[in-house]
């Protein structure tokens, strides 16, 4: 059984909570005590209907204010797949939360109200999903029951969104007309929309092909930890532990270690459960090498004929997440794969308007929830790939050196 990570976003009125509630309920991931608790709170508040948003909005402040503050994670499973939903609020801190939720997602689910069509928020969600290179984008046109299940309404929204998406970097785009409230096309195909010939939402989520989404071409193993048992049973054992960030490593492969540049061969790939013939993303393994080379945390194991970019001058799209704006000259802590380095902001080339995609080249700074193109210089060379080629070796986070808070997220450009 595979794992599928879904990111979704939206406000209460587009029916997102109802949809998630239905998916969870129909897959038996909502339990009776949770439902009773939600029904009780809804009654106490005098709601006319049971507010399924209360299932995800767990914090006191959220209940009091009727808003979603933060990314909430929900889990459900069918016999075919296990699903993790990162559910993000659509209004407050939208960029920060959307970027966070989408960073690990296989699929982004964008909801549109059939009566309202494409709105600013729809475009913003789709743009951020493409920015974070979520491989699959799914637009659900909800509340079809309120437009008489009219195929023309669905067709017009589909056409308008496809035109917008053609300006984005979206590799897989799908559309499903649904009614979350009535259950049309959520789990079962709807009898009310015989003109729709595609899969139901749940069926789509179960079937969407994700195996080829990972990078299986460029072998990358950032070293996390050096395993040296120093025990009498394994006196000379020395292994390099890490999570494979790209490509396939096989026992016997010739490999190159950065920054030393030395080449050697893979002597073995170890796990607690036995040796492996090969390792690929996202496996956590321990690699032994034939030659005794000096390797420590932060080093990278790759192939002699397939090396990442090595450099101290970085060009990246940065999503800024702090109240105080970032300007050229700022010093920040930067984490890339398994390394922290210091970075200085050299230049802010432009700020992207996440609603219109317009580039403002006179911005000069990035404020809270802004996205922009930034040049950085770091204290030591990084071994990186472009984000579009590898989400693991092409991403970094930025932290404030005095408060230690995470203030930004970066996606690297590079020669593809």
């Amino acid at each position: 059984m595979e794992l599928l990570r879904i990111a979704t976003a939206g406000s209460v009125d587009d029916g997102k909570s109802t949809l998630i509630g239905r998916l969870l309920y129909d897959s038996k991931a909502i339990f009776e005590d949770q439902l009773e608790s939600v029904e009780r709170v809804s009654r106490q508040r005098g709601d006319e209907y049971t507010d399924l948003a209360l299932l995800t909005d767990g914090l006191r402040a959220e209940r009091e204010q009727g808003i979603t503050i933060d990314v909430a994670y929900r889990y459900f499973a069918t016999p075919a797949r296990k699903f993790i939903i990162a559910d993000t609020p659509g209004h407050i801190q939208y960029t920060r939360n959307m970027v966070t939720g989408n960073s690990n997602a296989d699929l982004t689910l964008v909801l549109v109200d059939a009566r309202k069509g494409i709105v600013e928020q729809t475009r913003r969600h789709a743009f951020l999903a493409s920015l974070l290179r979520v491989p699959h984008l799914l637009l659900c046109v909800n509340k079809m029951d309120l437009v008489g299940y009219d195929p023309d309404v669905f067709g017009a929204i589909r056409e308008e969104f496809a035109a917008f998406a053609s300006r984005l970097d979206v590799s897989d785009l799908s559309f499903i007309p649904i009614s979350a409230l009535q259950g049309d096309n959520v789990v079962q195909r709807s009898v009310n929309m015989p003109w729709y010939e595609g899969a139901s939402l749940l069926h789509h989520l179960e079937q969407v092909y994700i195996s080829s989404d990972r990078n299986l071409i460029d072998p990358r193993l950032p070293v996390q930890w050096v395993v040296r048992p120093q025990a009498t049973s394994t006196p000379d054992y020395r292994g390099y532990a890490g999570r494979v960030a790209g490509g396939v490593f096989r026992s016997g492969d010739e490999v190159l270690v950065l920054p030393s540049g030395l080449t050697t061969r893979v002597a073995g790939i170890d796990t607690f459960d036995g040796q492996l013939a090969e390792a690929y993303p996202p496996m956590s393994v321990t690699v032994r090498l034939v030659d005794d080379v000096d390797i420590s945390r932060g080093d990278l194991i790759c192939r002699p004929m397939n090396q990442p970019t090595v450099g101290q001058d970085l060009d990246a799209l940065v999503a800024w997440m702090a109240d105080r704006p970032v300007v050229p000259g700022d010093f920040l802590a930067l984490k890339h794969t398994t390394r922290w380095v210091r970075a200085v902001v050299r230049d802010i080339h432009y700020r992207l308007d996440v609603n219109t995609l317009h580039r403002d080249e006179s911005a000069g700074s990035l404020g809270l929830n802004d996205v922009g193109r930034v040049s950085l210089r770091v204290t030591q060379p990084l071994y990186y790939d472009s984000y579009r080629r590898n989400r693991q070796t092409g991403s970094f986070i930025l932290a404030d050196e005095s408060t230690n808070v995470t203030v930004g997220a970066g996606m690297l450009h590079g020669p593809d």
Partner: protein
Amino acid sequence: MERAPGGTAAGQYQQSHLSTLESQSIHIIREVAAEFERPVLLFSGGKDSVVMLRLAQKAFWPGRIPFPIMHVDTGHNFPEVIEFRDRAVDSYGANLVVASVQASIDSGRAVDEPGPNPSRNRLQTRTLLDAINEHRFDAVFGGARRDEEKARSKERVFSFRDEFGQWDPKNQRPELWSLFNGRHRAGEHIRVFPLSDWTELDIWQYVTEDHLELPSIYYSHRREVFRRDGMLLSVGAHVSPRGDEEVFETTVRYRTVGDMTCTGAVESLATTAEDIVIEVAASRLTERGATRADDRVSEAAMEDRKREGYF
């Protein structure tokens, strides 16, 4: 070899969901060992901490687990669990630190709640924070899962705690990709939850596949119980039925392992982990909803305790 990390279909470079979760947790545990000075792993003897301990073993194998294990002992634990704890920690060759709630009470740092059969659930927080300070732990692994409870569903994998051990849910660090930010100042610490993405069912499937030993009370057995607030409580040294509560013997098991005073049993005939996988898959109640009085105080009982520094 039970299960290759490649899972069921390694030929297609596809991992099973359990192998993916395992890889993710091992990655988290290694990051902590590498970036912190003094990590510690909280171990209650419960199924989640048993899985977490096994993952820590896998992360550093064939080396040893490079940090100590800590148990916050309320003095109200099930005797079967304490016995299991000592055996388990011993078998991993790990160092055990026991932080005692009774010692906190004896020294005046904590006071039992009034009334008969007081729960020491909330008192653990004082003992835990004192132990973190005393040992200067800077990273504390906990076995909490996001599917357990709604406040937990908003929890980060690396969760910052200030010098008072407090959690501020409205002011959490964004957490992207697999890039965890454990930076903190002296006196502050990070709670780390490597099982964040696991569900109760995943835990049981893992226990089954890896043949992990658990305390015997997880499996069906005969026990003297009485009903209180809709829960079956065990008759024992720290819990006694009130006059109107009838004691009867029945076949039960526990879905969670907490204090005897606040952890309820469920009627069950499941005697193996395989039986429990089937039972959990069919269950219509969450494990905490079914069996934990500590979460029933209010809608935000867990959030309030977590803000104070609870697990």
